[in-house]
């Protein structure tokens, strides 16, 4: 193999083949997929409200993807559905509004495809984010205290002050309130719902 041009050509051809196969063909096959109209008249997937869109950026910036997947595997593959992480497998349509698509490859923590369905409690999500140990002892999730503000309590506690259990509560006279970023992140989490029945998800 002493002929340079042949080598060049082979090198070019091999990468071109996989680029066509794994990049171009998927783009042609389902890159133009559009939202569908449900019987109720609403669009699926819905456009995320502003807070949830900002929350998506918080999720991305703090690398939640490294421990949490956003994909539910089929009923007969793995125990995702038996664990109640979803009622059906997720399909391409579920992700067309995600920027970027954060499927994830790790489940150090549980899957979040349906966290907005599975645990819709805003106060729980905030408490858990502030310090995961306060609700889930033994968890290895890091605390996100930097998304909260611990400040001197006024005459009356702020309406959004966290109610923290004993060892995690702030010193007397202080209160913990979520910042805008924390509220946005929870908006995003609560918007994660991939439970609309879809024909291709059988």
């Amino acid at each position, binding site marked *: 193999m002493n002929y340079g041009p042949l080598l060049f050509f082979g090198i070019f051809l091999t990468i071109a083949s996989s680029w066509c196969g794994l990049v171009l063909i998927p783009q042609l096959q389902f890159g133009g997929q559009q939202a569908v109209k449900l019987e109720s008249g609403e669009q699926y997937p819905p456009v995320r409200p502003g807070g949830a869109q900002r929350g998506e950026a918080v999720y991305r910036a703090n690398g939640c993807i490294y421990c949490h997947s956003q994909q539910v595997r089929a009923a007969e593959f793995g125990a995702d559905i038996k664990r109640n992480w979803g009622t059906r497998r997720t399909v391409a349509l579920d992700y067309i509004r995600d920027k970027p698509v954060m499927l994830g490859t790790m489940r150090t923590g549980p899957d979040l495809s349906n966290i907005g369905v*599975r*645990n*819709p409690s805003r106060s*729980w999500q905030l408490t858990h984010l502030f310090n995961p140990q306060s609700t889930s002892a033994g968890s290895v999730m890091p605390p996100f205290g930097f998304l909260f503000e611990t400040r001197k309590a006024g005459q009356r506690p702020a309406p959004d002050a966290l109610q*923290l*259990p004993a060892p995690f509560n702030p010193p007397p006279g202080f209160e913990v309130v979520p910042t805008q970023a924390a509220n946005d992140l929870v908006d995003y989490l609560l918007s994660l719902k991939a439970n609309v*029945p879809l024909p291709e998800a059988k």
Partner: protein
Amino acid sequence: MSFDSSNPQDPAPGAIARQAAPSSAFSLPDDLPPAIQRERPEPLEGNHPMSLLFVTFVAVLFFWGGFYLQRFSGGYQPFSYNENTLGGGATNAPAKPLDPFAEGKRLFVDTCAKCHQADGQGLAGQYPPLAGSEWVKAEGAARIIRIVLDGLQGPIKVKGADFNNQMVPWRDVLTDQQIASVITYVRGEKGWGNNASAISAEQVAAVRQKTKTRPATGSWTAGELLKIPEIEADMPSGTNAPPAGATNSVSTNLPAAK
């Protein structure tokens, strides 16, 4: 194991001597760096043929690859997610009968234990306990079904302790069967000292129907619940047996999300 400390780069002193032997009549000029002087010639390739066994192995792999690709590609359709769909290997396993207690335990761990904790003890001052709770162990399930369906807000006394928090409604999230299973589990978990009767999906369905306007009003308060009799006259009877047609999959009968 040790390196030649003065010259760790060299393979072995003896080897160098052997290598240098052919050109003994000739020596390299001293002004070349020593590393260059001692290094071996640039690499070359030998011409050993490939073994036939290996060629056969490669051929078999190619054959397998073609077969697998054709068999498990779901017809190359963009929305065909199941690799078995067009291959004839149907995977629809027959539905297994459901054990409400086991399903309830799974659901509890995933959904309820986040607040009430896996041991059912809750968190002091935060989330009330379910283990030994008079609200859970009550003879009839009228109140607890309502709490799960539409949530609870405001002050409540459980096992003598006061709580004041907000429980979210599960009406649109869990099916009748799931709610029945999880309540059956919570009421019947002997490890917590609870030993109340199982409840059925029909009972949940009846309450769901009766309280269908409740979401507009908001979650229940303890005071409202106390006015409702524990055992309602028009309630279908509870049962331990799995309802006909129920399957192992929790995906059945789920109400469409709003």
